[in-house]
């Protein structure tokens, strides 16, 4: 176990297990760079930290640049280690996007993990660019009107050697992707959908079920883009056929944050998901 239990995560929060699963693969010689996010709290305070690898806390928008510097310094000492940015969706796709893009464009030899809980959860559930259409947050009390910012695609457009999506419900798929990413030189990006019980308004016993439903409904396709080549992975490989995908409503109805969505809006979301899969079918 790389991350001690009894840390400050909320009940049902997947983040500790997600970090553990990452470190199980990357090992002791890993540096985590963590911008402002839930993990800033989970990693404890000056009384002690739960991590068994070094953790460098970062200002909100700075993590990819700090990681670039750490890697450069380790290289100059000829010290081999995996430098990982571990960032939330706001730190990745909103305030941190310029720094992320800069590091991706320079093809820095770092790994970037975005744990996406689809809002500013650490500050109490405010909307981010990665909050999905229809979702309640404290700053979108009637539901978000805009769509989710497609960060994995944006990163992939930089031409980096590895981009993947992952889910805590498919942990072997996630760890296989981390393992692959670890062996690749250059900028590697993995985007984890990370269900949040208080923010998404579901019972803390349902985290994995909801993570699973996100994949089964096709809302969260599991894939990897290796050297520009797109490939569906795990269960998502079997979901090209629309009949194999569960209706998105099954995913939505377990979460209080979608409770204000009208049937029209649900239909609109279902259509968007279906269109997305049609696009995938063309590439895959």
């Amino acid at each position, binding site marked *: 176990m790389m991350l001690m239990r009894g840390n400050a995560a909320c009940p049902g929060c997947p983040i500790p297990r997600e970090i553990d699963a990452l470190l199980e693969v990357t090992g*002791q*010689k890993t*540096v985590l*760079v963590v911008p402002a996010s839930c993990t*800033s*709290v989970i*990693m*404890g*305070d*000056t*009384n002690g*930290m739960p*991590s*068994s*690898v*070094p*953790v*460098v*806390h*970062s*200002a909100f*928008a*700075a*993590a*990819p*640049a*700090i*990681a*670039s*510097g*750490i*890697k*450069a*310094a*380790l*290289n*100059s*000492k000829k010290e081999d*280690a995996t430098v990982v940015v571990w960032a939330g969706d706001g730190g990745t796709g909103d305030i941190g996007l*310029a*720094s992320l*893009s*800069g590091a991706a*464009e*320079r093809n820095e030899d770092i790994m970037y993990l975005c744990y996406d809980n689809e809002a500013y959860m650490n500050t109490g559930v405010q909307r981010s660019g990665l909050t999905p259409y229809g979702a309640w947050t404290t700053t979108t009390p009637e539901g978000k009107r805009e769509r989710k910012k497609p960060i994995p695609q944006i990163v992939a457009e930089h031409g980096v050697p590895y981009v993947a999506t992952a889910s805590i419900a498919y942990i072997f798929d996630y760890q296989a992707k981390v393992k692959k990413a670890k062996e690749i030189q250059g900028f590697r990006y993995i985007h984890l959908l990370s269900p949040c019980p208080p923010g998404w308004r579901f019972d803390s016993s349902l985290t994995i079920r909801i993570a699973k439903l996100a994949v089964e409904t096709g809302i969260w396709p599991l894939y990897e883009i290796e050297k520009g080549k797109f490939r569906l992975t795990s269960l998502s490989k079997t979901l090209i056929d629309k009949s194999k995908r569960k209706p998105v409503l099954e995913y939505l109805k377990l979460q209080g944050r979608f409770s204000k969505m009208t049937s029209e809006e649900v239909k609109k979301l279902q259509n968007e998901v279906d269109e997305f899969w049609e696009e995938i079918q063309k590439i895959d």
Partner: protein
Amino acid sequence: MQVESKVIKGLVGNHAVAYAVKQAKPQVLAVYPITPQTTMLEKLSEYVESGELKAKMIRVESEHSALAAVYGAALAGSRVFTATASQGLLYMTEMIYWAGGQRVPIVAAVATRAIASPWSILDDHHDFVSKRDAIWIQLMAENVQEAYDLTIQAFKISEDKRVLLPVMMGFDGFILTHTLEKVELLPDNVVDAFIPPRDFNLIDFSDPLGIGQVASPEDYIYYRYEAQRSMERSREVITEVERDYEDITGRKYGLIDCYMCDDAEYIIVSMGAWSGDARVAVQKEREKGIRAGLLKVRTFRPFPKDEVKQIVGKSRGVVVFDRSVSYGSGGVLANEVKSASYGLDVPIHSVIAGLGGKDVRPLHMEKVLDDLALNQLEDERWLL
């Protein structure tokens, strides 16, 4: 022992600082272009590409990332350097505080420049002085030679175990960055001996730390207390480093520099390049029979309180020339001098001048000193 094999070259300020950086052998640089710093970045890029400087140059997408990158590299044990100015320094500000808070050795050159809006690419000191509370040592050069010398000293001061603070070396944009002056350069081996290999690393896989993690209220104030103590200790270290440097070069430095202060009745206080103009003004006043002197502040942080108070206390009147204003309060340096002179019965006047590159000449300073001696100088005068 003084170095005998002196190399004298004509260099613009930016190239002199780049040369000093090359000799200090940092392993990691991260720089983002901004006028008037860019020719330094270009020269450093040449050094790196030609292999003269064996360092990784991270060509970041913003100043925020420039300081973030050197911060990360510094944590992991590299000697690091960055440079910026004006808007760039403001854009860096969050990371300036971040690095200061962790007391990580970093050297940053600031080619001082006015701040928008409105746009100005020309010199004043608003950028530099705005970082006075960020837990950075701040040195300010008067000429190109001093910019070269202070850059070398900055690495040694920053990495001293009694200090461990980032150091900012300010030098006036265009007035120094783009002016060709005669510079005496040290041989590489002398710089090697002057700045020993860096011994600082916080990324240890066998003893992992949480760096910058949440501090409890009990601990947070302790961090800051230690920072203040370190600043206070640095006075001695800066003095020691400058004494060692004088032994090698014969060039005398200190927290302050005094010119004709010994018997001076009227003191002009300044910081940066126009201290040269102030020297001329002081000479002219002396020719007129007015006993003027110059007090130049070289170390803005830590502020040389005792040294300033001692000089001010011997005088009959002081005027502080400021290229920066704390709006609603007064000249930034003037406020510092007044604070340091608490308890003295000496009038301290403030002159605000040279903002956004407005030309200031010895003549202007003479007029102010004349008025000071005639008791005709207002508390605050703007040279418009």
